[in-house]
Protein backbone atom coordinates (compact mmCIF):
# COMPACT_ATOMS: atom_id res chain seq x y z
CA UNK A 1 0.00 0.00 0.00
CA UNK A 2 1.09 3.52 -0.69
CA UNK A 3 2.25 4.94 2.65
CA UNK A 4 0.34 8.21 2.48
CA UNK A 5 1.48 10.82 4.98
CA UNK A 6 -2.07 11.73 5.90
CA UNK A 7 -3.00 8.29 7.15
CA UNK A 8 0.31 7.78 8.89
CA UNK A 9 -0.06 11.06 10.73
CA UNK A 10 -3.68 10.34 11.45
CA UNK A 11 -3.23 6.91 12.98
CA UNK A 12 -0.11 7.91 14.84
CA UNK A 13 -1.39 11.10 16.39
CA UNK A 14 -4.98 10.19 17.03
CA UNK A 15 -3.89 6.83 18.42
CA UNK A 16 -1.68 8.38 21.05
CA UNK A 17 -4.11 11.24 21.64
CA UNK A 18 -6.96 8.87 22.30
CA UNK A 19 -4.75 6.72 24.49
CA UNK A 20 -3.93 9.76 26.53
CA UNK A 21 -7.59 10.70 26.77
CA UNK A 22 -8.36 7.23 28.03
CA UNK A 23 -5.76 7.57 30.71
CA UNK A 24 -7.06 10.99 31.65
CA UNK A 25 -10.58 9.58 31.80
CA UNK A 26 -9.77 6.89 34.28
CA UNK A 27 -7.40 8.92 36.36
CA UNK A 28 -8.75 8.71 39.95
CA UNK A 29 -6.94 11.97 40.73
CA UNK A 30 -7.15 13.86 37.54
CA UNK A 31 -5.48 17.21 37.04
CA UNK A 32 -7.67 20.25 37.30
CA UNK A 33 -7.53 23.85 36.23
CA UNK A 34 -4.62 24.87 34.06
CA UNK A 35 -2.94 21.53 34.47
CA UNK A 36 -6.06 19.84 33.15
CA UNK A 37 -6.24 22.43 30.40
CA UNK A 38 -2.75 21.68 29.12
CA UNK A 39 -3.18 17.96 29.44
CA UNK A 40 -6.47 17.91 27.63
CA UNK A 41 -5.28 20.41 25.09
CA UNK A 42 -2.45 18.11 24.19
CA UNK A 43 -4.67 15.05 23.99
CA UNK A 44 -7.31 16.85 21.98
CA UNK A 45 -4.76 18.46 19.73
CA UNK A 46 -3.22 15.12 18.91
CA UNK A 47 -6.55 13.42 18.38
CA UNK A 48 -8.22 16.17 16.44
CA UNK A 49 -5.07 16.94 14.51
CA UNK A 50 -4.90 13.34 13.49
CA UNK A 51 -8.52 13.28 12.51
CA UNK A 52 -8.18 16.44 10.48
CA UNK A 53 -5.14 15.09 8.77
CA UNK A 54 -7.14 12.03 7.79
CA UNK A 55 -9.47 14.23 5.79
CA UNK A 56 -6.60 15.43 3.64
CA UNK A 57 -6.74 12.37 1.53
CA UNK A 58 -10.43 12.71 0.88
CA UNK A 59 -11.60 13.66 -2.56
CA UNK A 60 -14.48 15.61 -1.06
CA UNK A 61 -13.74 16.62 2.52
CA UNK A 62 -16.69 19.02 2.40
CA UNK A 63 -18.98 16.02 2.40
CA UNK A 64 -17.26 14.48 5.41
CA UNK A 65 -20.43 14.64 7.49
CA UNK A 66 -21.94 11.96 5.30
CA UNK A 67 -19.34 9.62 6.69
CA UNK A 68 -21.26 9.35 9.93
CA UNK A 69 -24.25 7.72 8.40
CA UNK A 70 -23.22 4.13 7.81
CA UNK A 71 -22.20 3.10 11.31
CA UNK A 72 -24.20 -0.10 10.99
CA UNK A 73 -21.81 -1.58 8.47
CA UNK A 74 -18.82 0.63 8.02
CA UNK A 75 -15.89 0.73 10.42
CA UNK A 76 -14.88 4.05 8.99
CA UNK A 77 -18.29 5.42 9.77
CA UNK A 78 -18.13 3.85 13.23
CA UNK A 79 -14.79 5.42 13.77
CA UNK A 80 -16.26 8.79 12.92
CA UNK A 81 -19.17 8.33 15.24
CA UNK A 82 -17.02 6.97 18.06
CA UNK A 83 -14.44 9.67 17.74
CA UNK A 84 -17.06 12.37 17.92
CA UNK A 85 -18.66 10.64 20.88
CA UNK A 86 -15.32 10.19 22.60
CA UNK A 87 -14.30 13.76 21.99
CA UNK A 88 -17.67 15.11 23.14
CA UNK A 89 -17.77 13.08 26.28
CA UNK A 90 -14.16 13.78 27.08
CA UNK A 91 -14.80 17.41 26.25
CA UNK A 92 -17.50 17.58 28.89
CA UNK A 93 -15.32 15.73 31.30
CA UNK A 94 -12.45 18.07 30.58
CA UNK A 95 -14.70 21.08 30.97
CA UNK A 96 -15.63 19.83 34.40
CA UNK A 97 -11.99 19.55 35.33
CA UNK A 98 -10.74 22.74 33.77
CA UNK A 99 -13.54 25.05 34.74
CA UNK A 100 -15.01 23.45 37.82
CA UNK A 101 -12.11 21.32 39.03
CA UNK A 102 -14.74 18.69 39.28
CA UNK A 103 -14.10 15.18 37.97
CA UNK A 104 -17.38 13.64 36.80
CA UNK A 105 -16.03 10.14 37.09
CA UNK A 106 -18.70 8.27 35.09
CA UNK A 107 -18.14 10.64 32.20
CA UNK A 108 -14.45 9.96 32.46
CA UNK A 109 -14.93 6.27 32.34
CA UNK A 110 -17.38 6.42 29.48
CA UNK A 111 -15.07 8.80 27.65
CA UNK A 112 -12.11 6.55 28.23
CA UNK A 113 -14.07 3.62 26.93
CA UNK A 114 -15.15 5.56 23.89
CA UNK A 115 -11.60 6.69 23.26
CA UNK A 116 -10.30 3.17 23.23
CA UNK A 117 -13.29 2.09 21.22
CA UNK A 118 -12.33 4.73 18.69
CA UNK A 119 -8.84 3.32 18.50
CA UNK A 120 -10.38 -0.07 18.07
CA UNK A 121 -12.61 1.16 15.23
CA UNK A 122 -9.60 2.68 13.55
CA UNK A 123 -7.78 -0.58 13.83
CA UNK A 124 -10.79 -2.38 12.43
CA UNK A 125 -10.78 -0.23 9.30
CA UNK A 126 -7.58 -2.02 8.49
CA UNK A 127 -8.11 -5.31 10.22
CA UNK A 128 -11.35 -5.93 8.37
CA UNK A 129 -9.73 -5.89 4.95
CA UNK A 130 -9.46 -9.41 3.60
CA UNK A 131 -7.68 -7.86 0.64
CA UNK A 132 -4.68 -7.08 2.82
CA UNK A 133 -3.90 -10.28 4.74
CA UNK A 134 -1.14 -8.62 6.70
CA UNK A 135 -3.74 -6.40 8.34
CA UNK A 136 -6.59 -8.82 8.32
CA UNK A 137 -6.08 -10.17 11.86
CA UNK A 138 -7.31 -9.34 15.38
CA UNK A 139 -3.69 -8.70 16.18
CA UNK A 140 -3.96 -5.44 14.29
CA UNK A 141 -6.41 -4.23 16.92
CA UNK A 142 -4.16 -5.48 19.67
CA UNK A 143 -1.29 -3.61 18.12
CA UNK A 144 -3.21 -0.36 17.72
CA UNK A 145 -4.70 -0.54 21.16
CA UNK A 146 -1.51 -1.50 22.92
CA UNK A 147 0.38 1.30 21.24
CA UNK A 148 -2.36 3.79 21.99
CA UNK A 149 -2.52 2.77 25.60
CA UNK A 150 1.24 2.68 26.06
CA UNK A 151 1.77 5.97 24.29
CA UNK A 152 -1.16 7.47 26.15
CA UNK A 153 0.32 6.36 29.43
CA UNK A 154 3.58 7.97 28.51
CA UNK A 155 1.94 11.26 27.66
CA UNK A 156 -0.29 11.08 30.66
CA UNK A 157 2.84 10.86 32.78
CA UNK A 158 2.11 7.32 33.96
CA UNK A 159 5.71 6.39 33.50
CA UNK A 160 5.53 3.18 35.45
CA UNK A 161 2.59 1.85 33.51
CA UNK A 162 4.07 3.26 30.34
CA UNK A 163 7.23 1.26 30.74
CA UNK A 164 5.36 -1.97 31.23
CA UNK A 165 2.91 -1.23 28.46
CA UNK A 166 5.65 -0.31 26.03
CA UNK A 167 7.01 -3.78 26.50
CA UNK A 168 3.56 -5.21 25.84
CA UNK A 169 3.23 -3.09 22.73
CA UNK A 170 6.68 -4.18 21.62
CA UNK A 171 5.58 -7.75 21.98
CA UNK A 172 2.42 -7.08 20.00
CA UNK A 173 4.44 -5.36 17.31
CA UNK A 174 6.91 -8.23 17.05
CA UNK A 175 4.23 -10.86 16.83
CA UNK A 176 2.30 -8.76 14.31
CA UNK A 177 5.34 -8.45 12.12
CA UNK A 178 6.09 -12.12 12.34
CA UNK A 179 2.57 -13.19 11.50
CA UNK A 180 2.35 -10.48 8.89
CA UNK A 181 5.32 -11.68 6.94
CA UNK A 182 3.61 -14.91 6.04
CA UNK A 183 0.01 -13.69 6.06
CA UNK A 184 -0.24 -13.15 2.33
CA UNK A 185 1.14 -16.54 1.46
CA UNK A 186 -0.97 -18.16 4.16
CA UNK A 187 -4.11 -16.74 2.62
CA UNK A 188 -3.31 -18.61 -0.58
CA UNK A 189 -4.26 -15.94 -3.10
CA UNK A 190 -1.97 -15.85 -6.06
CA UNK A 191 -2.19 -15.36 -9.80
CA UNK A 192 -3.55 -18.87 -10.02
CA UNK A 193 -6.62 -18.10 -7.91
CA UNK A 194 -6.83 -14.52 -9.12
CA UNK A 195 -7.22 -15.62 -12.71
CA UNK A 196 -8.73 -19.03 -12.12
CA UNK A 197 -5.98 -20.44 -14.32
CA UNK A 198 -3.87 -21.92 -11.56
CA UNK A 199 -4.80 -25.48 -12.39
CA UNK A 200 -3.45 -24.97 -15.90
CA UNK A 201 0.07 -24.22 -14.81
CA UNK A 202 2.19 -21.44 -13.48
CA UNK A 203 0.60 -18.07 -14.21
CA UNK A 204 2.81 -15.09 -14.90
CA UNK A 205 2.02 -11.50 -15.76
CA UNK A 206 3.11 -10.86 -19.34
CA UNK A 207 2.06 -7.26 -19.68
CA UNK A 208 0.18 -4.72 -17.66
CA UNK A 209 -3.12 -3.59 -19.11
CA UNK A 210 -1.78 -0.13 -19.79
CA UNK A 211 1.87 0.83 -20.15
CA UNK A 212 1.07 3.95 -18.18
CA UNK A 213 0.52 3.66 -14.45
CA UNK A 214 -2.86 4.05 -12.77
CA UNK A 215 -4.49 4.80 -9.47
CA UNK A 216 -4.51 1.15 -8.47
CA UNK A 217 -0.81 0.70 -8.98
CA UNK A 218 -0.08 3.91 -7.16
CA UNK A 219 -2.33 3.12 -4.26
CA UNK A 220 -1.83 -0.61 -3.82
CA UNK A 221 1.46 -1.61 -5.24
CA UNK A 222 4.33 -0.39 -3.16
CA UNK A 223 7.51 -2.29 -2.86
CA UNK A 224 10.01 -1.79 -0.06
CA UNK A 225 13.29 -3.59 -0.31
CA UNK A 226 13.79 -6.31 2.28
CA UNK A 227 16.93 -4.77 3.69
CA UNK A 228 15.13 -1.46 4.19
CA UNK A 229 12.36 -3.23 5.99
CA UNK A 230 14.76 -4.79 8.47
CA UNK A 231 16.48 -1.50 9.04
CA UNK A 232 13.24 0.37 9.49
CA UNK A 233 11.82 -2.23 11.81
CA UNK A 234 14.86 -1.90 14.05
CA UNK A 235 14.66 1.87 13.93
CA UNK A 236 10.95 1.73 14.72
CA UNK A 237 11.55 -0.56 17.70
CA UNK A 238 14.40 1.54 18.97
CA UNK A 239 12.48 4.79 18.75
CA UNK A 240 9.13 3.44 19.76
CA UNK A 241 10.15 1.30 22.75
CA UNK A 242 13.84 0.99 23.49
CA UNK A 243 14.80 4.62 23.54
CA UNK A 244 11.79 5.80 25.57
CA UNK A 245 12.43 3.02 28.05
CA UNK A 246 16.07 3.96 28.30
CA UNK A 247 15.19 7.59 28.76
CA UNK A 248 12.62 6.81 31.41
CA UNK A 249 14.94 4.51 33.25
CA UNK A 250 18.06 6.59 32.98
CA UNK A 251 16.71 10.05 33.55
CA UNK A 252 14.56 11.58 36.26
CA UNK A 253 10.91 11.74 35.33
CA UNK A 254 10.23 15.35 34.53
CA UNK A 255 8.20 17.03 31.86
CA UNK A 256 11.13 17.43 29.59
CA UNK A 257 12.25 13.83 29.92
CA UNK A 258 8.73 12.57 29.31
CA UNK A 259 8.42 14.83 26.33
CA UNK A 260 11.68 13.47 25.00
CA UNK A 261 10.56 9.89 25.53
CA UNK A 262 7.17 10.64 23.97
CA UNK A 263 8.76 12.32 20.97
CA UNK A 264 10.94 9.30 20.40
CA UNK A 265 7.97 7.04 20.84
CA UNK A 266 5.90 9.03 18.36
CA UNK A 267 8.69 8.95 15.82
CA UNK A 268 8.90 5.21 16.34
CA UNK A 269 5.16 4.73 15.94
CA UNK A 270 5.23 6.83 12.81
CA UNK A 271 8.01 4.66 11.43
CA UNK A 272 6.07 1.56 12.34
CA UNK A 273 2.99 3.02 10.68
CA UNK A 274 4.96 3.84 7.57
CA UNK A 275 5.93 0.20 7.45
CA UNK A 276 2.37 -0.81 8.30
CA UNK A 277 1.27 0.69 5.01
CA UNK A 278 4.36 0.30 2.89
CA UNK A 279 4.73 -3.37 3.62
CA UNK A 280 1.07 -4.22 3.24
CA UNK A 281 0.45 -6.29 0.16
CA UNK A 282 -2.93 -5.84 -1.46
CA UNK A 283 -4.43 -8.58 -3.60
CA UNK A 284 -4.63 -6.11 -6.48
CA UNK A 285 -0.86 -6.37 -6.72
CA UNK A 286 -1.30 -9.97 -7.79
CA UNK A 287 -2.99 -8.91 -10.98
CA UNK A 288 -0.06 -6.71 -11.78
CA UNK A 289 2.39 -9.48 -11.07
CA UNK A 290 3.91 -7.15 -8.53
CA UNK A 291 3.33 -8.73 -5.21
Amino acid at each position, binding site marked *: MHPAASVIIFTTLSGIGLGMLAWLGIDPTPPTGWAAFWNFLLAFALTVGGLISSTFHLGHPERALKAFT*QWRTSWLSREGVCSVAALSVMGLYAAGLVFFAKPIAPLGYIGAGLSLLTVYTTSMIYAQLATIPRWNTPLTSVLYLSLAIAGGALLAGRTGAAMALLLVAAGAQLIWWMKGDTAFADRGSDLGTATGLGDRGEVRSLAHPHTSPNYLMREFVYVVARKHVQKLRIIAMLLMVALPLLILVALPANLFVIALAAASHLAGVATSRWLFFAEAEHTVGIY*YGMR
Partner: protein
Amino acid sequence: MTDLPTTTDKKLGLVIDLDTCVGCHACVISCKGWNTENYGAPLSDQRPYGEEPMGTFLNRVHSYEVKAEGQAAQTVHFPKSCLHCENAPCVTVCPTGASYKRKEDGIVLVNEQSCIGCGLCAWACPYGARELDQEEGVMKKCTLCVDRIYNENLPEEDRQPACVRTCPAGARHFGDFADPESNVSILTAERGGMDLMPELDTAPVNKYLPPRLKDSFDDESILAPFLDPVAEETQGFMGWLDKQLSRLPGDTKTQSEDV
Protein backbone atom coordinates in the same frame (compact mmCIF):
# COMPACT_ATOMS: atom_id res chain seq x y z
CA MET B 1 -28.19 1.31 3.42
CA THR B 2 -24.75 0.04 2.69
CA ASP B 3 -25.95 -3.18 4.12
CA LEU B 4 -25.98 -5.54 1.21
CA PRO B 5 -29.40 -6.60 0.07
CA THR B 6 -29.99 -10.16 1.24
CA THR B 7 -31.05 -11.13 -2.24
CA THR B 8 -31.49 -9.27 -5.46
CA ASP B 9 -34.29 -9.88 -7.93
CA LYS B 10 -31.87 -10.22 -10.76
CA LYS B 11 -28.18 -10.89 -10.76
CA LEU B 12 -26.98 -8.98 -13.75
CA GLY B 13 -23.41 -9.45 -14.82
CA LEU B 14 -20.95 -10.45 -17.46
CA VAL B 15 -19.46 -13.66 -18.70
CA ILE B 16 -15.98 -13.20 -20.10
CA ASP B 17 -14.69 -15.89 -22.37
CA LEU B 18 -10.96 -16.28 -21.91
CA ASP B 19 -10.95 -18.73 -24.78
CA THR B 20 -11.83 -16.06 -27.32
CA CYS B 21 -10.61 -12.79 -25.89
CA VAL B 22 -7.87 -11.63 -28.25
CA GLY B 23 -6.82 -8.77 -25.98
CA CYS B 24 -7.82 -6.00 -28.37
CA HIS B 25 -8.81 -3.45 -25.69
CA ALA B 26 -11.97 -2.52 -27.59
CA CYS B 27 -14.02 -3.02 -24.46
CA VAL B 28 -11.61 -0.82 -22.52
CA ILE B 29 -12.01 2.16 -24.78
CA SER B 30 -15.71 1.88 -25.52
CA CYS B 31 -16.21 1.76 -21.77
CA LYS B 32 -14.05 4.83 -21.37
CA GLY B 33 -15.95 6.61 -24.10
CA TRP B 34 -19.40 5.78 -22.86
CA ASN B 35 -18.67 6.49 -19.23
CA THR B 36 -16.82 9.69 -19.92
CA GLU B 37 -19.87 11.07 -21.60
CA ASN B 38 -22.47 9.42 -19.40
CA TYR B 39 -23.02 8.26 -15.77
CA GLY B 40 -21.53 10.76 -13.35
CA ALA B 41 -18.40 12.77 -13.81
CA PRO B 42 -16.23 12.24 -16.89
CA LEU B 43 -13.40 9.75 -16.55
CA SER B 44 -10.54 12.19 -16.44
CA ASP B 45 -6.97 11.92 -17.69
CA GLN B 46 -3.95 13.47 -16.10
CA ARG B 47 -1.08 14.57 -18.31
CA PRO B 48 -2.91 13.21 -21.35
CA TYR B 49 -0.18 14.44 -23.68
CA GLY B 50 2.63 14.54 -21.20
CA GLU B 51 5.13 12.51 -19.36
CA GLU B 52 3.36 9.68 -17.60
CA PRO B 53 -0.21 10.01 -18.80
CA MET B 54 -2.65 8.50 -16.34
CA GLY B 55 -6.40 8.33 -16.43
CA THR B 56 -9.41 6.62 -14.97
CA PHE B 57 -10.62 3.42 -16.63
CA LEU B 58 -13.35 1.08 -15.47
CA ASN B 59 -12.18 -1.89 -17.41
CA ARG B 60 -8.65 -2.99 -18.16
CA VAL B 61 -7.23 -5.95 -20.01
CA HIS B 62 -4.28 -7.78 -18.50
CA SER B 63 -2.07 -10.30 -20.30
CA TYR B 64 -0.79 -13.44 -18.64
CA GLU B 65 1.21 -16.45 -19.57
CA VAL B 66 0.36 -19.88 -18.25
CA LYS B 67 3.03 -22.49 -18.38
CA ALA B 68 2.65 -26.13 -17.51
CA GLU B 69 5.64 -28.43 -17.32
CA GLY B 70 6.56 -29.83 -20.71
CA GLN B 71 4.08 -27.74 -22.68
CA ALA B 72 4.27 -24.56 -24.64
CA ALA B 73 3.27 -21.53 -22.61
CA GLN B 74 -0.14 -20.07 -23.32
CA THR B 75 -1.02 -16.43 -23.55
CA VAL B 76 -4.27 -15.40 -21.91
CA HIS B 77 -5.75 -11.95 -22.33
CA PHE B 78 -7.72 -11.11 -19.26
CA PRO B 79 -10.25 -8.27 -19.13
CA LYS B 80 -11.26 -7.14 -15.70
CA SER B 81 -13.93 -4.76 -14.49
CA CYS B 82 -16.20 -4.84 -11.44
CA LEU B 83 -17.57 -8.32 -10.82
CA HIS B 84 -20.66 -7.02 -8.99
CA CYS B 85 -20.01 -9.36 -6.10
CA GLU B 86 -22.88 -10.67 -4.06
CA ASN B 87 -20.84 -10.25 -0.89
CA ALA B 88 -19.40 -6.99 -2.07
CA PRO B 89 -16.91 -5.89 0.59
CA CYS B 90 -16.57 -2.56 -1.16
CA VAL B 91 -20.13 -1.72 -0.26
CA THR B 92 -20.11 -2.52 3.42
CA VAL B 93 -16.95 -0.54 4.12
CA CYS B 94 -18.31 2.63 2.59
CA PRO B 95 -18.88 5.20 5.35
CA THR B 96 -21.24 7.39 3.40
CA GLY B 97 -23.59 4.98 1.72
CA ALA B 98 -22.33 6.17 -1.62
CA SER B 99 -21.48 2.60 -2.53
CA TYR B 100 -24.45 0.36 -2.77
CA LYS B 101 -25.72 -2.77 -4.42
CA ARG B 102 -29.02 -2.38 -6.16
CA LYS B 103 -31.84 -4.49 -4.84
CA GLU B 104 -33.47 -4.96 -8.20
CA ASP B 105 -30.55 -6.21 -10.25
CA GLY B 106 -27.51 -6.50 -8.01
CA ILE B 107 -25.52 -3.82 -9.80
CA VAL B 108 -22.95 -2.26 -7.50
CA LEU B 109 -22.88 1.47 -7.96
CA VAL B 110 -21.36 4.59 -6.49
CA ASN B 111 -23.59 7.55 -5.90
CA GLU B 112 -21.13 10.26 -6.76
CA GLN B 113 -23.07 12.95 -4.91
CA SER B 114 -22.44 11.18 -1.62
CA CYS B 115 -18.95 9.94 -2.20
CA ILE B 116 -16.27 11.62 -0.13
CA GLY B 117 -13.47 9.95 -2.06
CA CYS B 118 -12.02 8.22 0.97
CA GLY B 119 -10.85 5.32 -1.18
CA LEU B 120 -11.74 2.68 1.37
CA CYS B 121 -13.99 0.79 -1.01
CA ALA B 122 -11.11 0.45 -3.44
CA TRP B 123 -9.03 -0.93 -0.58
CA ALA B 124 -11.73 -3.45 0.12
CA CYS B 125 -12.09 -4.64 -3.45
CA PRO B 126 -9.76 -7.55 -4.07
CA TYR B 127 -9.86 -7.14 -7.82
CA GLY B 128 -8.82 -3.59 -8.43
CA ALA B 129 -12.16 -2.75 -9.92
CA ARG B 130 -12.48 0.73 -8.46
CA GLU B 131 -10.48 3.78 -9.36
CA LEU B 132 -10.60 7.15 -7.65
CA ASP B 133 -10.93 9.82 -10.29
CA GLN B 134 -8.14 12.29 -9.79
CA GLU B 135 -9.98 15.29 -11.17
CA GLU B 136 -13.33 14.70 -9.57
CA GLY B 137 -12.23 13.11 -6.30
CA VAL B 138 -14.96 10.50 -6.45
CA MET B 139 -14.80 6.77 -6.76
CA LYS B 140 -15.39 5.35 -10.23
CA LYS B 141 -16.32 1.84 -11.13
CA CYS B 142 -18.10 -0.22 -13.73
CA THR B 143 -21.79 0.61 -13.63
CA LEU B 144 -22.68 -2.37 -15.76
CA CYS B 145 -23.85 0.42 -18.00
CA VAL B 146 -26.93 0.92 -15.90
CA ASP B 147 -27.67 3.90 -18.09
CA ARG B 148 -27.73 1.73 -21.22
CA ILE B 149 -29.31 -1.55 -20.22
CA TYR B 150 -32.66 -0.01 -19.34
CA ASN B 151 -32.36 3.04 -21.55
CA GLU B 152 -35.54 3.65 -23.44
CA ASN B 153 -33.80 6.08 -25.72
CA LEU B 154 -31.76 3.21 -27.08
CA PRO B 155 -33.12 0.60 -29.43
CA GLU B 156 -33.86 -2.67 -27.64
CA GLU B 157 -30.86 -4.48 -29.10
CA ASP B 158 -28.54 -1.79 -27.83
CA ARG B 159 -29.66 -2.11 -24.24
CA GLN B 160 -26.53 -3.89 -23.22
CA PRO B 161 -23.23 -2.69 -21.84
CA ALA B 162 -21.03 -0.69 -24.17
CA CYS B 163 -18.19 -3.17 -23.76
CA VAL B 164 -20.37 -6.11 -24.70
CA ARG B 165 -21.84 -4.39 -27.70
CA THR B 166 -18.43 -3.51 -29.02
CA CYS B 167 -16.41 -6.67 -28.34
CA PRO B 168 -15.37 -7.82 -31.81
CA ALA B 169 -14.54 -11.37 -30.77
CA GLY B 170 -17.82 -11.90 -28.96
CA ALA B 171 -15.93 -12.71 -25.81
CA ARG B 172 -18.24 -10.74 -23.52
CA HIS B 173 -21.77 -11.74 -22.66
CA PHE B 174 -24.28 -9.89 -20.54
CA GLY B 175 -27.29 -11.31 -18.78
CA ASP B 176 -29.10 -12.35 -15.64
CA PHE B 177 -27.42 -15.07 -13.60
CA ALA B 178 -30.51 -15.43 -11.44
CA ASP B 179 -32.26 -16.91 -14.43
CA PRO B 180 -30.91 -20.40 -15.06
CA GLU B 181 -32.15 -20.20 -18.65
CA SER B 182 -30.26 -17.04 -19.49
CA ASN B 183 -27.40 -17.03 -21.97
CA VAL B 184 -24.94 -16.28 -19.22
CA SER B 185 -26.17 -19.04 -16.92
CA ILE B 186 -26.03 -21.56 -19.73
CA LEU B 187 -22.56 -20.54 -20.82
CA THR B 188 -21.37 -20.68 -17.24
CA ALA B 189 -22.78 -24.13 -16.75
CA GLU B 190 -21.56 -25.51 -20.05
CA ARG B 191 -18.10 -24.10 -20.02
CA GLY B 192 -17.31 -24.26 -16.31
CA GLY B 193 -17.48 -20.55 -15.54
CA MET B 194 -15.10 -19.59 -12.75
CA ASP B 195 -14.99 -17.14 -9.86
CA LEU B 196 -11.91 -15.05 -9.32
CA MET B 197 -10.25 -15.48 -5.93
CA PRO B 198 -13.00 -17.69 -4.57
CA GLU B 199 -11.05 -17.95 -1.31
CA LEU B 200 -12.14 -14.42 -0.46
CA ASP B 201 -15.85 -15.29 -0.43
CA THR B 202 -16.88 -12.23 -2.36
CA ALA B 203 -19.19 -14.34 -4.52
CA PRO B 204 -18.61 -12.49 -7.77
CA VAL B 205 -21.52 -12.39 -10.16
CA ASN B 206 -19.30 -12.09 -13.24
CA LYS B 207 -17.89 -15.37 -14.41
CA TYR B 208 -14.85 -16.24 -16.49
CA LEU B 209 -14.89 -19.07 -18.99
CA PRO B 210 -11.54 -20.88 -18.95
CA PRO B 211 -9.60 -21.29 -22.19
CA ARG B 212 -10.21 -24.62 -23.89
CA LEU B 213 -7.38 -27.12 -23.72
CA LYS B 214 -4.75 -26.37 -26.31
CA ASP B 215 -1.84 -27.72 -28.29
CA SER B 216 -3.08 -31.30 -28.61
CA PHE B 217 -0.94 -31.73 -31.72
CA ASP B 218 2.10 -31.67 -29.52
CA ASP B 219 1.09 -35.11 -28.34
CA GLU B 220 1.32 -38.24 -30.42
CA SER B 221 -0.94 -37.83 -33.39
CA ILE B 222 -4.21 -39.65 -33.54
CA LEU B 223 -4.53 -38.30 -37.01
CA ALA B 224 -1.88 -40.46 -38.64
CA PRO B 225 -4.31 -42.64 -40.64
CA PHE B 226 -5.35 -39.60 -42.60
CA LEU B 227 -1.90 -39.50 -44.08
CA ASP B 228 -1.39 -43.10 -45.13
CA PRO B 229 0.81 -42.73 -48.17
CA VAL B 230 -0.46 -43.61 -51.63
CA ALA B 231 2.89 -43.01 -53.23
CA GLU B 232 6.43 -42.12 -52.29
CA GLU B 233 7.67 -40.60 -55.55
CA THR B 234 6.44 -39.09 -58.80
CA GLN B 235 5.90 -42.25 -60.76
CA GLY B 236 3.97 -43.92 -58.05
CA PHE B 237 1.95 -40.77 -57.57
CA MET B 238 1.10 -40.49 -61.24
CA GLY B 239 0.12 -44.14 -61.26
CA TRP B 240 -2.15 -43.58 -58.31
CA LEU B 241 -3.54 -40.50 -59.98
CA ASP B 242 -4.27 -42.43 -63.11
CA LYS B 243 -6.19 -45.00 -61.14
CA GLN B 244 -8.12 -42.36 -59.30
CA LEU B 245 -9.04 -40.62 -62.49
CA SER B 246 -10.22 -43.75 -64.19
CA ARG B 247 -12.77 -43.98 -61.43
CA LEU B 248 -14.13 -40.64 -62.45
CA PRO B 249 -16.96 -40.97 -64.98
CA GLY B 250 -16.18 -41.25 -68.70
CA ASP B 251 -12.53 -42.19 -68.70
CA THR B 252 -11.01 -43.96 -71.65
CA LYS B 253 -7.57 -43.08 -72.60
CA THR B 254 -4.93 -41.16 -70.78
CA GLN B 255 -2.14 -40.96 -73.29
CA SER B 256 -2.09 -40.08 -76.90
CA GLU B 257 0.25 -39.45 -79.79
CA ASP B 258 -0.27 -36.36 -81.84
CA VAL B 259 -3.67 -34.97 -82.73
